């Protein structure tokens, strides 16, 4: 038994009155491709320079390889975060109340694409580079808060997911009526929770400097990250909000001629 694809469903003989409705997937595909390239590049950089230049922060080569990357990426990535939000704000719809159901539906689809890209960035920080960080710290003695694993995990991955987390929030608020008139509580949790992982890093480093010089990964010192990571669950609430509106919009936008 084969699964019906979206193409199968659209190949039926019944025609819609709104056959002009299309979506552009270009930016969605570009974002995922570029992000994959960026993340893979970071991993190869760690492979190339982690052991050879990342073991002792007092050595000149550490400054050259790791601190240079740190100081370059920090303004670039946080600058991009700010630029994207400013772009979204200044290109906002100044009369959201006047949009047609078709435009609203389209924006819900693009908003969902923002969320998919956001979850993609969350995978890399929550899973791939997080375990890489554990692996590094359990193997190599920690002598600085800016280790080769932290340069990537906290100071590159977090700004990248801020781009898409806050970006999705601003996109929804400036273009979708329901998200403009009300503040989605779950969307706030989904964005702010993971964002707070960055300030929580201060507590983590403080604890590692004074309490726990070894690395027990399940130590209570790390539980702040866990509780903030739980906020990811609230993205389900955002998806439910989108689904409930889509159920109303789809029959309005796609009226069968023979209905």
């Amino acid at each position, binding site marked *: 038994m084969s699964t019906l694809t979206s193409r199968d469903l659209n190949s039926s003989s019944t025609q819609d009155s709104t056959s002009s409705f299309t979506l552009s997937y270009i930016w969605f595909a570009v974002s995922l491709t570029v992000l994959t390239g960026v993340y893979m590049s970071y991993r190869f950089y760690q492979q190339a320079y982690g052991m050879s230049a990342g073991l002792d922060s007092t050595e000149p080569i550490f400054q050259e390889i790791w601190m240079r990357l740190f100081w370059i990426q920090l303004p670039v990535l946080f600058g991009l975060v700010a630029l994207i939000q400013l772009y979204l704000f200044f290109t906002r719809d100044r009369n959201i109340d006047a949009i047609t159901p078709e435009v609203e539906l389209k924006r819900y689809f693009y908003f969902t694409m923002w969320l998919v890209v956001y979850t993609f960035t969350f995978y890399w920080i929550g*899973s*791939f580079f997080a*375990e890489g960080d554990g692996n590094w710290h359990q*193997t190599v003695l920690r002598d600085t808060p800016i280790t080769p694993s932290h340069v990537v995990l906290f100071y590159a991955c977090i700004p990248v997911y801020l781009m898409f987390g806050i970006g999705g929030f601003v996109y929804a608020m400036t273009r979708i009526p329901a998200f403009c008139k009300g503040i989605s509580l779950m969307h706030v949790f989904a964005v702010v929770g993971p964002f707070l992982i960055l300030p929580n890093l201060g507590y983590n480093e403080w604890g590692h400097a004074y309490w726990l010089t070894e690395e027990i990964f399940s130590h209570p010192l790390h539980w702040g990250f866990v509780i903030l990571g739980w906020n990811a669950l609230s993205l389900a609430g955002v998806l439910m909000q989108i689904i409930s509106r889509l159920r109303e919009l789809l029959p309005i936008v796609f009226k069968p001629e023979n209905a």
Partner: protein
Amino acid sequence: MNTETLQHPRGAAAGKAHAVETVLSVSGLSPQAAHFSRVFELMVVAAIILLFTGAIHLHVLLLAGDWDLFLDWKDRQYWPLLTPVVMIMFPAALQGIFWTFFRLPIGATVGATCLMVAVCITRPASFMWWTDYPLNLVLPAQMIAGAIVLDVFLLVFRNALFTAIFGGFAFAFLFYPSNYTIFAPFYVPVSHQGMMASMADLIGYVYPRSATPEYIRIIERGTLRTFGDSASWVSALFGGFICIFMHYAWWYLGVTMSSMKFLPNNTKVMALMGTKADA
């Protein structure tokens, strides 16, 4: 379901066309609406898989981390107790979401599979290729068997409380036996410098983790060894007891976090964003 939908025309193409017509008639959507509805579903599936792969892995990594990361931490006292208690949380929340809103009894298995995929990517990518540990030392535990049983209990009982009581308990109780086939070879006793150790201990001694020295390894403390071979079952039993409550709490946490609540926005902010309060 009417009888007409059960009569399948012969031939693959005819069968597919019949299936399309059935889906459209049941959903009440036009073909194009159904097409975009399916596109949206694919995006939601992608978002859920990516999100929960990251979230579950982060959660397990930082709560049960060392017991799941290292072979020589997989003891009979804490590993069968802590790991399932930590691992049931997100699958229970996913069960709550999937069952309450979509009547799909697949949440726990989805969560367990996401975690399994995540660790199968990161163990080689990090521990093997970056710091050159053998994969044996960092073999992950699996909870897919327990998760399937948990989903089956939900399918049978169709009730959160009974799923928590029976499924939650079974999830933890099955953890040790369902992983035993993978780890049994490493529990073989060996003689090391005149003392008895397990093969897992020996692998740990050979590959030292500089920042995770032997003295912080938390395994088999207290009078455990006087229990003989029943120790792991006592831990599994206790783990099952905690999992009952953990499942119930996280089921409702998942449902609560799926709230569709909007808080009223400030009128000035609304005006700035391009809408009016009374619109």
